[in-house]
């Protein structure tokens, strides 16, 4: 595999194009189907003209922000997962498994308990801080002097920290009677996303993805071996710090917006790598596109499976995720 030079444009180009096409189709589908199906023509008008009628308004105000959120969060979580898997050389890494969601959850509990006046933005920031703390705890405790982060230690540390932080959040929730608020937030899902929230989320995710892509080359090397990376003159500490910050940003903002969506960060990078190989300059964009498509699909299913009730989107993903998890665990639990 080449470590220098440009990626082979042809094959990758086609794959990416196909991916983008799928995403576009998913986007359209998600706008058409729902509690009430809207004809494609109205969707078109909603997006590209200034006309209004009742249907168009529904699209513009309610569905569009929601599906944009799905795209953005899907991309963010998938990218975060890809980065984590590369950085820790563990195919089982996922922001949810490694303390990030638990940390964000705890931060929200603390926020609701002690700073109830924090608005949406405040809670989002709290979520970030919590996600950062959770991840730092897991990475810190899961590292061993000898070989950095072995998959076993990370997953174990992740499990223990997750248990602990959730228990802590629960204790605070009960003691200060904010359990309901916290669970409402985390089980929330994409429903009710407003343009205001998107205005915060989209730039952040875009920034995160950009930084990640800038470091993609180093990430590829890191994903092979720490020693090789250092040997090639890479400043691994800096790279890892930057990438960790990106993961925290991407995962944190996602959790703050839609609550916990486990498994996207786990599954999608595998799909991406299966499609375009192990060069992260290709994996990251592919993962972003695939993640967006997946979440769009899941959200559409969530809204249509048992109309008019909303099945939580996290449900659909979890159901998809468990068999997936077992399959890849079987195939690649240890670093091969």
């Amino acid at each position: 595999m080449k470590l220098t030079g440009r990626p082979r444009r042809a094959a990758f180009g086609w794959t990416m194009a196909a991916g983008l096409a799928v995403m576009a189709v998913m986007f359209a589908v998600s706008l058409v189907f729902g509690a009430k199906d809207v004809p494609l023509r109205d969707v078109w008008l909603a997006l590209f003209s200034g006309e209004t009628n009742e249907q168009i308004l529904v699209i513009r105000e309610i569905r569009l922000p929601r599906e944009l959120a799905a795209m953005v969060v899907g991309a963010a979580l998938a990218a975060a997962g890809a980065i984590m898997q590369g950085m820790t050389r563990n195919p089982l890494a996922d922001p949810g498994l490694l303390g990030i969601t638990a940390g964000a959850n705890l931060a929200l509990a603390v926020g609701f308990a002690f700073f109830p006046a924090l608005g949406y933005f405040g809670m989002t920031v709290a979520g970030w801080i919590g996600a950062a703390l959770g991840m730092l705890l897991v990475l810190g405790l899961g590292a061993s002097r000898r070989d950095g982060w072995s998959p076993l230690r990370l997953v174990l540390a992740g499990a223990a920290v997750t248990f602990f932080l959730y228990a802590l959040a629960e204790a605070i929730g009960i003691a200060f009677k904010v359990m309901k608020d916290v669970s409402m937030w985390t089980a929330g899902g994409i429903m009710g996303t407003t343009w205001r929230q998107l205005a915060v989320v989209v730039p952040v995710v875009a920034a995160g993805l950009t930084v990640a892509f800038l470091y993609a080359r180093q990430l590829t090397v890191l994903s092979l071996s720490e020693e090789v990376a250092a040997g090639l003159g890479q400043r691994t500490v800096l790279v890892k710090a930057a990438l960790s910050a990106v993961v925290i940003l991407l995962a944190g903002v996602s959790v703050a917006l839609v609550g916990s969506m486990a498994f996207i960060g786990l599954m999608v990078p595998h799909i991406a790598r299966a499609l375009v190989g192990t060069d992260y300059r290709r994996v990251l964009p592919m993962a972003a596109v695939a993640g967006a498509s997946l979440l769009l699909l899941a959200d559409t299913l969530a809204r249509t499976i048992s109309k008019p009730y909303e099945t939580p989107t996290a449900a659909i993903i979890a159901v998809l995720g468990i068999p997936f998890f077992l399959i890849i665990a079987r195939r690649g639990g240890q670093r091969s």
Partner: protein
Amino acid sequence: MRKLLFPALLILALVVTACGGNQKSSGGETFTYESETGPVDVPKNPRRVVSLSGFTGNLMHLGVPVVGADIWSKNAAQFAEKLKDVEEASEENLEKLIELDPDLIIALSTAKNLDKIGEIAPTVTYTWGALDIFNMHIEIGKAVNKEKEAREWVDNFRKRLEEAGAKIKAKIGENATVTVIEVYDKAIYVFGDNWARGTEILYQEMKLGMPEKVKENALESGYYTLSPEVLPEFVGDYLIISKYANADTSFQDTETYKNIPAVKNGRVLEMTGEGASFSDPFTLEMQLDLFEEFFLNSP
């Protein structure tokens, strides 16, 4: 095996001693009330009543001393002042319950630990929705020996409702329709005519109109979950929203919502969600006042 003997004996000892409890001896005069679950010996003059859910308002209106109330009643705006000094009681905290030393406990038929609660004090349970709101109140009145007062209130209130209904219809028109929705967490529910939040008094008593779509979907089942996308189809000439404090109300910022005729014409009443699901005299009177004010004074 020897290692197990001691712990086994210990457990055995615990089990044996447990089976030897004695029953509570009841003092004071009692009478037999036919409850849903059979005859119960309840005090003629209840002095320390604990309400574990839903009927606290009824009890208070009948003048019965309530020493322990459920958390939802305590959080309801209309009871906050009255229940300020009353302890919170829950079917889960049996120790607190027995510490409150009640002589009568009123609970929902779905409460947990009913058998143990029944040992602490005479317990009367009701199934939510088994009786209509007025007969429910009269039943509770029977259980606390205040049947007469209960019936009096019901008769007076129904008369008042009839008059109010006539007045309102005169103002808004014979065929005007009202929609009642509730926003809770991230969901929107629309109600038929028997799911509290004022629906009984609006539809059944005052006989105001209900939009067709609501009749189709919510009348039989009691309530129906809506997506904000389809909300406009369900809203009639007037809209009443029961809003919980931490509910997601972002849909109210959308043009879709603002274009609903009732909203455009300013015919929307918002009331606090907490406590709107009760059907006791205090709540009903409060809702009637709100409704009269709303209908008679809106454009």
